[in-house]
């Protein structure tokens, strides 16, 4: 094993190269990134990074490490601003255009690309948020004022709405489905946490789509499918992302909503592993094919995939209870597990109170998920219970004991 190539220079790719060196890999390591930037932390981009600093200074760019660290400490060849264009598993080569980079082991971690609003390419003031460049463009736009229309009521859209409200702008979220976040936390809880928007002065319109985005040069209004028209100086698309795997068409990998892998994040092709948003793998904790789009999984999979790639004979499965968080209007929302449930039960709080919310998800007789709002002390207890396969009865008993201890 002489040459490790990591394709994708965000969190999963960073963890892959760091882990390889930490574990003592002494061969050549190449990190290929589509963006010109060094790896940076994405969660802040839709949160604090959009805020105006107290002294009007923009928050610093959230780079994880400086260039010197990669070159001198990690001895990594950085190929940034160089999107990979093809993988040839027979020749064990990754291509960047005509340039080939040979590998003995490769970790594919090309992440996701934001869906953008079609037909708005010629209109300024229309944004999406995925990259550092996107975030800087949006932050600059927010300095010039609203009103702001956010298309899509998911976590990213909601965080952007929260940042825009903090600046005092009129904000409207347009969500095509009847309740936001149905896929992430279930329709009932999606509707419940939507109340945070109402309480904080953001208008949320559900069950209506966008018919047209209009303006002369710069965006001026959003026309909805129900006939309403919203004035807009800034439009932000928060309509999800798609795994960046088109470049692997024809590579022989199984592509189906990401790169299909086994439990060890192996793609089934010699030397080729996947990590982060692109990896769709059978998560042993739940026994089903899953694909994550969260920080925690990207970090862990990057490390696991590279260890397995460098020592396939001792490859270990990657099992996890998913965890993600979101910050809206100063309130922290946290979710662990999966939302596909037979029953969702409030064990603390209620939709009309602004204290702690703890909500549990049951599938069969088992606890499979937990959602908390403003309850940071509770969430990880439930992650532990889900990891250990706790029964629903035990989870409810635990919740009661927590509640009693606080009373």
């Amino acid at each position, binding site marked *: 094993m002489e040459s490790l190539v990591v394709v994708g220079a965000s969190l999963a790719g960073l963890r892959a190269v760091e882990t390889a060196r930490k574990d003592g890999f002494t061969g050549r390591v190449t990190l290929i990134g589509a963006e010109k930037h060094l790896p940076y932390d994405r969660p802040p981009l839709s949160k604090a990074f959009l805020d105006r600093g107290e002294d009007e200074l923009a928050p610093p760019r959230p780079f994880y490490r400086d260039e010197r660290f990669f070159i001198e400490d990690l001895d990594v060849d950085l190929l940034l601003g160089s999107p990979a264009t093809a993988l040839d598993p027979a020749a064990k080569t990754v291509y960047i255009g005509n340039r080939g980079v040979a590998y003995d082991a490769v970790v594919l971690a090309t992440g996701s690309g934001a869906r953008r609003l079609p037909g708005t390419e010629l209109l300024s003031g229309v944004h999406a948020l995925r990259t550092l460049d996107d975030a800087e463009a949006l932050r600059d736009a927010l300095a010039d004022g609203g009103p702001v229309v956010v298309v899509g009521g998911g976590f990213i859209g909601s965080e952007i709405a929260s940042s825009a409200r903090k600046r005092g702008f009129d904000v409207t979220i347009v969500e095509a489905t009847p309740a936001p976040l149905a896929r992430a936390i279930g329709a009932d809880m999606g509707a419940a946490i939507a109340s945070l928007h109402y309480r904080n002065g953001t208008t949320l319109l559900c069950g209506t789509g966008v018919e047209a985005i209009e303006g002369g040069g710069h965006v001026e209004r959003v026309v909805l499918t129900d006939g309403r028209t919203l004035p807009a100086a800034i439009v932000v698309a928060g309509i999800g992302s798609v795994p960046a795997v088109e470049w692997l068409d024809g590579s022989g990998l199984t592509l189906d909503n990401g790169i299909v892998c086994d439990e060890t994040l192996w793609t089934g092709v010699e030397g080729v592993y996947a990590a982060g948003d692109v990896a769709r793998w059978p998560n042993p904790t739940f026994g089903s094919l899953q694909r994550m789009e969260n*920080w925690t999984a990207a970090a*862990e999979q990057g490390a696991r995939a590279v260890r397995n790639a460098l020592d396939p004979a001792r490859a270990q499965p990657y099992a996890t*209870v998913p965890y993600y968080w979101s910050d809206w209007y100063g309130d*922290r929302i*946290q979710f662990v597990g999966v939302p596909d449930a037979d029953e969702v039960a409030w064990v603390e709080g209620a939709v009309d109170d602004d204290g702690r919310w703890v909500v549990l998800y049951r599938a069969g007789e088992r606890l499979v998920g937990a959602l908390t709002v403003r309850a*940071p*002390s509770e969430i*990880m207890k439930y*992650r532990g219970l889900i990891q250990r396969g706790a029964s629903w009865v035990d989870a409810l008993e635990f919740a009661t004991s927590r509640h009693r201890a606080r009373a």
Partner: protein
Amino acid sequence: MKISVDYEKCTGLGICESLAPDVFEVDDSGALVLLKESLSDEEREAVEAAVAACPTEALRLHSVVTTPSVARP
């Protein structure tokens, strides 16, 4: 081994608590509480994982340097 927390960076996301619940706990206000500061060798592996997994890179693990006892006046 000894753990230190940079409270300027920590936002109480709790990944450390899920990896090493005997050592870390997030309290009601979202602040991280160290349940113990000195670690046994058995706890060390879990804490190392927690240090590596912290999204805000707020955790550090130090070897404890035993200073020779100094005669006090």
